[in-house]
């Protein structure tokens, strides 16, 4: 089930601001394990699982379902499409990609490139700028305009690829891998007893500044908020101290964005249940939903779990499935560990 969820999630298109299709997949998979599903004004999806306590405290989980992508900026006289980015797209990764333009109907296109035969020597050394790239859908201007208008979203066409050793590669694993963690957590909780109400929130618009998490946190007003996002996975060229290994468990974040007691409890639970975990140190901003959640209303005790991911913000993002499973398990046991706990006492400094 986890694999099929991941496949459907990653292959669904949902550029920041256009998360509708991804939300449908989330709803389908989360519904059997939730008491209620809600969509808020910004488009974030809440899967609510009620707790057993009389006056239940609220735990909010947040993983973002939006993905970085492109947007139609101009259709030129010959029908070629100029575009801009939504979120942190690396322009070096765009040349010769197959794309889908989500207009009145979906149109396939390719981002072309100048033949190497006629490149100037100086051009060979430089990366091409996004503003100089064009999408070719094979139609003249008048035809393109029937289907495409300024502001339409564009995604890269990419299926989830199974690599060896339980690894998968694809687009949008940042942060649909986090959404899959919430699915695993809800599934675990379905055969456990928990006091707290759990709000598993698939947020929108994280990639442009956690804009979905801010109003969602205000709306829910949780006692504890935990963001699930992706972190830099280790590859040979990256420094060891800034990365985490794939397959060695989820990272538990620590730093100014994270309430120390939430961190301590996550570590304690991981040790108690032999769940592998790694550490992730953030001296300041984490750039995740946790950063927005923490300063909502009177402040929220926040935690951060991240899944090690290689090649971030490309269409070949790579994660290991066992890390997702372990993160889901860790969160479920964390939530159950709060049974009978006076959170105010636990969370005071």
């Amino acid at each position: 089930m986890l694999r099929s969820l991941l496949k459907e999630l990653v292959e669904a298109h949902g550029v920041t601001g256009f998360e509708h299709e991804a939300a449908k997949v989330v709803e389908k998979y989360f519904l059997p394990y939730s008491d209620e599903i809600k969509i808020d004004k910004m488009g974030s999806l809440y899967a609510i699982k009620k707790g057993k306590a009389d006056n239940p405290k609220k735990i909010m989980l947040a993983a973002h379902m939006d993905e970085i992508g492109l947007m139609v900026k101009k259709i030129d006289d010959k029908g070629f499409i100029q575009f801009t980015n939504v979120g942190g797209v690396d322009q070096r990764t765009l040349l010769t990609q197959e794309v889908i333009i989500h207009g009145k109907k979906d149109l396939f296109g390719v981002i072309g490139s100048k033949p190497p035969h006629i490149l100037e020597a100086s051009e060979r050394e430089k990366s091409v700028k996004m503003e100089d790239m064009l999408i070719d859908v094979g139609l003249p201007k008048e035809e393109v305009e029937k289907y495409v208008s300024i502001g339409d979203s564009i995604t890269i066409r990419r299926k989830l690829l199974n690599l060896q050793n339980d690894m998968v590669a694809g687009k949008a694993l940042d942060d649909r891998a986090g959404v899959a963690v919430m699915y695993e957590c809800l599934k675990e909780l379905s055969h456990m007893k928990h006091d707290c109400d759990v709000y598993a929130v698939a947020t929108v618009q994280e990639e442009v500044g956690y804009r979905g998490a801010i109003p969602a946190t205000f709306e829910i007003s949780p006692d504890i908020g935990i963001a699930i996002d992706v972190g830099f996975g280790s590859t040979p060229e990256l420094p060891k101290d800034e990365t985490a290994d794939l397959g060695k468990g989820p990272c538990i974040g620590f730093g100014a964005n994270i309430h120390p007691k939430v961190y301590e409890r996550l570590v304690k639970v991981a040790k108690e249940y032999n769940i592998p975990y790694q550490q992730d140190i953030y001296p300041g901003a984490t750039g995740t939903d946790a950063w927005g959640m923490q300063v909502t209303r009177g402040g929220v005790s926040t935690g951060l779990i991240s899944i090690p991911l290689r090649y971030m913000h490309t269409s070949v993002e790579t994660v290991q499935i066992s890390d997702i499973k372990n993160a889901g398990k860790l969160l479920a046991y964390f939530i159950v560990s709060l049974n009978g706990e006076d959170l105010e006492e636990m969370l005071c400094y």
Partner: protein
Amino acid sequence: MINKDLLKRLLETFGPSGNEEAIREVIREEIKGYADEIKVDALGNLIAVKKGNGKKIMVASHMDEIGIMVTNIDDNGFIRFTNIGGVSPYTALYQRVMFADGTMGVVGVEKIDNMKDLTLSKMFIDIGAYSKEEAMKKVNVGDVACFYAPFVQDGDYIMSKALDDRIGCYVAIEALKALKNSPNEVYFVFTVQEEVGLRGAKTAAYGVDPDMGIALDVTLTGDTPKAKTMEVKMGKGTAIKIKDNSVLAHPTVKKLMIETAQENNIPYQLEILEGGGTDSGAIHLTKSGVPSGVISVPCRYVHSPSEMVSVKDVENSIQLLVKVLEK
């Protein structure tokens, strides 16, 4: 018909971010009698309410403009300064600036060999004083000034400082005057401190707690020689925002604006602004979220003392806003 007299007062009045007193009074005088209630909040936002039984709509246009603040005055009476909002050293050089009391100055620069090295820290304001003492009779550290450029209107174009965003204020004022039968409760908010991070709109939206937000601001154009690609052109209609760096327009608000423009044959353009933000950026993240959009007036040379807009675009913006509010 453009109200030239009002435009002149709006555009030439002093009001860098944090110093909106004078411009607030100009607007307050102008809208007297047109709103059911007029108030000023703790940060200085001017809020005019047009009562109704329907949804609460917040319309925001910012009163503040970019400017400079005095940081130091040297022994010879030359004034060092820093920016308030997005001031480019290239557009500031040799411009005239005006302090709140009307004191005028010109922006000069130290000897530099390469114009690429131009920074505000190498520049100074000369008010014609020969000593520190003489300068300090008129100007003190912390004083602010706006750029000085008289308003010009001829044919279809308007040229002035502070069109960003007094032209938005103008659109709001004219819409407030024209609005007769709105089923909605409309809050016309003239915000402060937009140029330093959408700060007035943030608290105003919290206070108003609207169901929908509409910001009125200027946007850039792609119609000048070898400009960065952008589909918005001056004179080709009001601009309905798709995105900028602060907001992705809410689909329902965007649709409402586009459909209203089409139904009323109001020329419009779709706007993707690859930089900058507007009050909607703050409004839409207020409380549990506020569906928000933006009506923009295409403007050339934004953040210069000679910003330029088209009268037709301004009129179309007013018309679109009124029709949207009446829906």
